[in-house]
């Protein structure tokens, strides 16, 4: 009997609280949401995308604050799971204060969640999704500042062709990101006449021995890895240790100083290690070095890949909201206005490139760099020299 009394009294209290204090949704607060995996085994990257955006908000929200707005970050954890991503997306769109979303690392989560953004006209700038389907749906709300798989894969293959590579062994990490780039790399490499000695996917994160036997037997000129540094660096190190001296090439998932912490000197021996990325070195984008320094100061950890992209996405959102607010007479802008402002963004000076979005939300000309790992010490990661720069427009 007492249990039922407990339930009744609990409800009364809850009712009183809700009536008394509906959270004062001051219309002067502008929120920008982020969605990335903050838990689970992909949280290393997910957390740093949020941190990149948080850092950008701190550094670049001044103009909006001056106009009397309070600017806040609303971080969401999509747990790299489509169900949670969609649920959070619906929570985001139902909060009028949120004007744009910096989001998703996994395209498996981005695609269903962006359906929700699209139905509510909420702008979404993706720091990391390279799956072509993200933009080929032609949604006004969805943009991304990274090249598509079909772009980055081509960059790698063209670079390999440039290095007179004849035979290639391609490995990827069985994720939409890694396999996507690897498939296009293979397609382009075969077009360029390179012999494909193997095309293997593996979710293995530690013991690559069974994969190294076919690699060593085939002795390809170049080994390409589609996926994150946490697997690529371990594979490259073990391959070097087993005597493979060819060239290593990977994608922008390799762009983190932890890579050289794992690989160390082995990444420099033999044919050396290269990676394609959008965030250029300090020499071309001075902001990158400053970003890395600020990031280390605030979080005492080196930024993971796509942290810089998180920073740039937030920068774009803030600039667009600023434009929309001005266009709306310094009053709270409509979401559609922000979405339009982002899509009309011209030559945004980010630390990972200059961005203009084309009709379906891809960056018009993604400037791609192929960078070589120059020193075994993690501190010198941002001084790695650019070996080649390619400007490639995304296919229509």
């Amino acid at each position, binding site marked *: 009997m007492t249990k039922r009394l407990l339930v009744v009294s609990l409800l009364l209290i809850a009712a009183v609280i809700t009536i008394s204090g509906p959270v004062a949704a001051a219309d002067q607060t502008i929120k920008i949401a982020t969605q990335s995996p903050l*838990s*689970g*085994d992909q*949280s*290393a990257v997910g*957390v740093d995308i949020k941190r990149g955006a948080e850092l950008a908000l701190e550094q670049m929200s001044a103009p909006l604050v001056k106009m009397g707005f309070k600017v806040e970050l609303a971080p969401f954890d999509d747990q790299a799971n489509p169900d949670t991503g969609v649920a959070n997306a619906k929570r985001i769109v139902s909060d009028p204060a949120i004007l744009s979303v910096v989001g998703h690392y996994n395209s498996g989560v981005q695609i269903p969640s962006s359906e929700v953004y699209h139905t509510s006209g909420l702008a979404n700038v993706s720091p990391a999704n390279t799956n072509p389907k993200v933009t080929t749906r032609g949604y006004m709300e969805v943009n991304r500042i990274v090249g598509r798989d079909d772009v980055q894969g081509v960059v790698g293959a063209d670079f390999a062709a440039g290095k007179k590579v004849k035979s290639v062994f391609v490995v990827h990490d*069985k994720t939409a990101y890694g396999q996507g780039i690897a498939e296009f790399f293979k397609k382009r490499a075969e077009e360029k006449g390179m*012999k494909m*000695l*193997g*095309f*293997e*996917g*593996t*979710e*293995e*994160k*530690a*013991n690559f*021995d*069974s*994969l*190294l*036997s*076919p690699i*060593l*037997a*085939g*002795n390809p000129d170049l080994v390409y890895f589609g996926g994150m540094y*946490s697997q690529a*660096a*371990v594979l490259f*190190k073990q391959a070097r*240790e*087993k*005597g493979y001296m060819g060239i290593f090439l990977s994608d922008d998932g390799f762009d983190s100083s*932890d890579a050289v*912490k*794992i690989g*160390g*000197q*082995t990444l420099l021996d033999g044919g050396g290690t290269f990676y394609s990325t959008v965030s250029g070195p300090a020499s071309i984008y001075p902001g990158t070095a400053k970003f890395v320094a600020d990031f280390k100061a605030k*979080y*005492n*950890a080196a930024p993971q890949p796509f942290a810089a992209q998180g920073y740039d996405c937030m920068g774009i959102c803030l600039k667009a909201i600023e434009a929309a607010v001005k266009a709306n007479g310094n009053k709270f802008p409509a979401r559609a206005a922000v979405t339009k402002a982002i899509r009309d963004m011209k030559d945004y000076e980010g630390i990972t490139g200059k961005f203009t979005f084309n009709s379906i939300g891809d960056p018009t000309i993604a400037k791609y760099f192929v960078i070589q790992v120059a020193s075994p010490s993690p501190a010198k990661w941002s001084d790695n020299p650019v070996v080649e720069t390619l400007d490639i427009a995304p296919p229509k």
Partner: protein
Amino acid sequence: MKRFLKSINVPELLRPLGQLIFFSLGSTIFLSAIALVLALILDRTVVGQTLFERLNVSLYTYTLVNLPQVAIDGLTIGFVYAAIALGYTMVYGVLEFINFAHSEIFAVGAFVGVEILIALDTFGILADASILMAYIYLILAILGGMLAAGGLAVAVERVAYRPLRHASRLVPLISAIGVSFLLQDVIRLVESLTTGQFNRIFPTFGNFDSRVILAKMTMGTTPITLGMSIKSIIVIVSAVLMLVALNYLVNATKIGKAIRAVAQDHPTASLMGIDVNRIISLTFLVGGMLGGAAGVLYALKFTRIDPFVGFFPGLKAFTAAVLGGIGNMTGALLGGIVLGMLETFAGSYMGVFTMGAAGSEYKDIFAFSILILVLIFRPQGLMGANVAQKA
């Protein structure tokens, strides 16, 4: 001291070494034979041709030349699985209970070991340490990992398993699954609060990464070197030492006999004056320490660890323990080696034999199908629990 030396019965000490050599050679020969026969059959078919176009070498020579390296790799990962499997077998022997959380105890050991070394590295001690000092620091890290993991295992048993000792069979198992998840996130929480990092990397020092060349061969035009990295040798040697030490403890010391007595009959053991609860805690301690040491060795060999590093190796090690005959220590040893070899052979050759249709990503499914086949056709495992033979 003399009395102590006299009391060591040497044959007991060396017995597992004999088994080690026998199991390793046995599984190598058996699997090599299968691989070579398959290679011969497939040589004439389209599989042989495509390989020839690519590497202009026959499937048979390709398989033969790669065989020793694949065998050594299989052995290395096999010993890692065996070392982890010991933890499962020890606990199962005494409590007939699968300690699902052993994979996280293994992970905690790995983290503590790596953190000790990173701390030393930040003080700059590791960088210019002599080879000897490097080994001493490594041993220090392994000991640290063992103590932490052992202590944790005892605490887990005391809190999450002891109250459920007389509950129905599945209740403690569900609790163990809960502990496994809890520990995964606790590691992540502690790591993110202290270091802010998710991946932790085994610092490079000493000569662990350098490679010992055992033989040079050529396959067609490409030179193939057969070798092992120092760290693989360390992994195998330490795993062997752990097995020998555990075997000696269980089979030749008083405490070891008490553990076996409790495993066979709790009530009668208590009538011998043995405090059953203390022995069970001790078993968890020893199992945990072995898991912890295996964790540090894993980090040494594979460089990168994260809070979820324990899940897959733990599952593989359990498969090895069951394959060998759960509850039987030699079984864990045999199961580990056989599983390691099977997995590596499959991983290396399946891609070539099936022309890329089923590559090494099916390596894990391979391990699970072995588990299911063993459980159906020979539930007591290769070593067989009912074989009237020393544990």
